[in-house]
């Protein structure tokens, strides 16, 4: 099976979020970048499926040269080759266009990615790629098994899950517990150095939306502590002060 996994290059989940340049740019000072946690699940499942069925696993990122270490890590985890679409994407539509173009060129049977990136949290790219390519798209997918061209999936819905049957080719936005995250071993890290890193140009420049400036939430006031022997005080605060009961 020929599998494409699209990954994001995002700040580690423990990063302090700050902005510079008059709140128009993300401040990368001291920030560690990682493969998006949801993308990491997608990649882990893709490695398992490639190992089961044979074939090739390609990993793709739309981004600048600074994302290459993240792509290398995906190669170390088990992808066979990487594509970096060299650009500074402004919105999910642009990213979806790039992925759709290179996915079509690559003739992939299965396209996986995380349910959403953890920077912009849009969760829209998989659906857009699906619509552009005329392929079904599913998200958030928590289980995915392939038997020939039949795919059985489990999708999370509010308060439960939905079981689905579909056929390849398809696109899925993944989340836990689709697979366990894989940690690259020494052999993987060594072999990643010699795997192909293809840098390609973006196609078209159409965008629909652009983040112009950023703000942080208002600082939270100090917590009001209530004595454990006087819980009715809490009830009255919730009712009369916070007005949430």
């Amino acid at each position, binding site marked *: 099976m020929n599998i494409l996994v699209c990954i994001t290059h995002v700040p580690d989940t423990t990063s302090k979020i700050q902005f510079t340049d008059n709140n128009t740019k993300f401040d990368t000072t001291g920030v560690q970048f990682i493969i998006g946690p949801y993308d990491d699940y997608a990649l882990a499942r893709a490695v398992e499926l490639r190992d089961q069925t044979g074939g090739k696993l390609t990993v793709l990122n739309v981004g600048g040269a600074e994302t290459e270490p993240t792509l290398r890590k995906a190669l170390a985890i088990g992808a066979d080759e990487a594509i970096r679409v060299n650009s500074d994407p402004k919105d999910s539509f642009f990213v979806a266009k790039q992925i759709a173009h290179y996915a079509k060129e690559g003739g992939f049977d299965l396209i996986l990615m995380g349910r959403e990136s953890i920077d912009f949290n849009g969760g829209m790219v998989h659906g857009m790629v699906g619509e552009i390519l005329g392929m079904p798209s599913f998200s958030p997918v928590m289980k995915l098994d392939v038997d020939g061209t039949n795919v059985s999936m489990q999708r999370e819905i509010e308060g439960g*899950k939905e079981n689905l049957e579909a056929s390849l080719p398809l696109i899925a936005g993944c989340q836990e517990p689709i697979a366990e995250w894989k940690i690259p071993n020494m052999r993987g890290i060594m072999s990643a150095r010699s795997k192909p890193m293809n840098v390609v140009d973006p196609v078209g420049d159409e965008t629909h939306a652009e983040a112009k400036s950023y703000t942080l*939430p208002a600082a939270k006031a100090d917590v009001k502590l209530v004595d454990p022997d006087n819980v009715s005080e809490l009830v009255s605060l919730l009712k009369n002060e916070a007005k949430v009961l």
Partner: protein
Amino acid sequence: MSVLVYIEHADGQVKKTSLEAISFANELAEKTGEGDVVAVALGSIDSGALASAGSAGADKVMHASDDKLTAGVIQAHASAVAAAFNQSGAKTVVMAKSSLADAVAARLAIKINAGLVSNVVELPNTDGGYTVKRSIYTGKAFAETSLDTENKILAIKKNAADLKTDGADAQVEAFDAGVSDSDFAAKITSTDRATGDVLLPEADIVVSGGRGMKGPENWGMIEDMASTLGAATGCSKPVSDIGWRPHHEHVGQTGIKVAPSLYIAVGISGAIQHLAGVNSSKCIVVINKDPEAPFFKAADYGIVGDAFDVVPKLTEALKAEL
């Protein structure tokens, strides 16, 4: 012109989050002069229940009652909403984020060539442009996003609008969703949904437990408090990882993000990944025996004490009050 709202329903009722989306659209239409608010509903539901969407601010409901649309097949819903969009002459589509709406919105954006902004937290600013405030970095920041397209889709977060409840009944009209067999290529074989309970992503009050609960056998007191409050129950990631609670209760960065009026955390230390899932809550109460638990810094109210002592007492006090 009109603003189109994609609404969802469950158990014969329009979802509350969809009613909020209608109210949002109502305020939007007033602001931009886009005219009527038209809701689009798919699948089997009583037209009386749909007419009541008028209370939230819908003028009209377009209904494709084909029973094949009742289950939320993503492609079919995207096609049907696109058909409604074209028939209604709307330029803007509003929907409340959900596992189905998100998937539909993305495909719809391509079908109708619309710019799409997700996690919208308030009405757009239309002074000399069209700028939408959206939540980013999992609630840790906001972005002012300019939207440059003629057609627009706004997927709104919970609490983005106040629910209007005083509108007159809406007029319900059938429409042809124009779906084809290929839209149903994917088959939903079964759904496994907790019934009767309050659904976590939509709940107004959430009571969550963490490792401080010591074991799944102690969840009775969490559930007692939740049922007293009409709340949904949630848990931290370690708790769902060990299997004490099902995955769909996991609240946090990689789990469910909630935005209730009241979030009560019991025995949860407050790792940054958990906070990312709750930082849109209006009011946070933390109960933890460790006064150094980082969650207290994110809380409005706190009790430093043993959950096994505090929780039953608090439930009793709540019962007495409510």
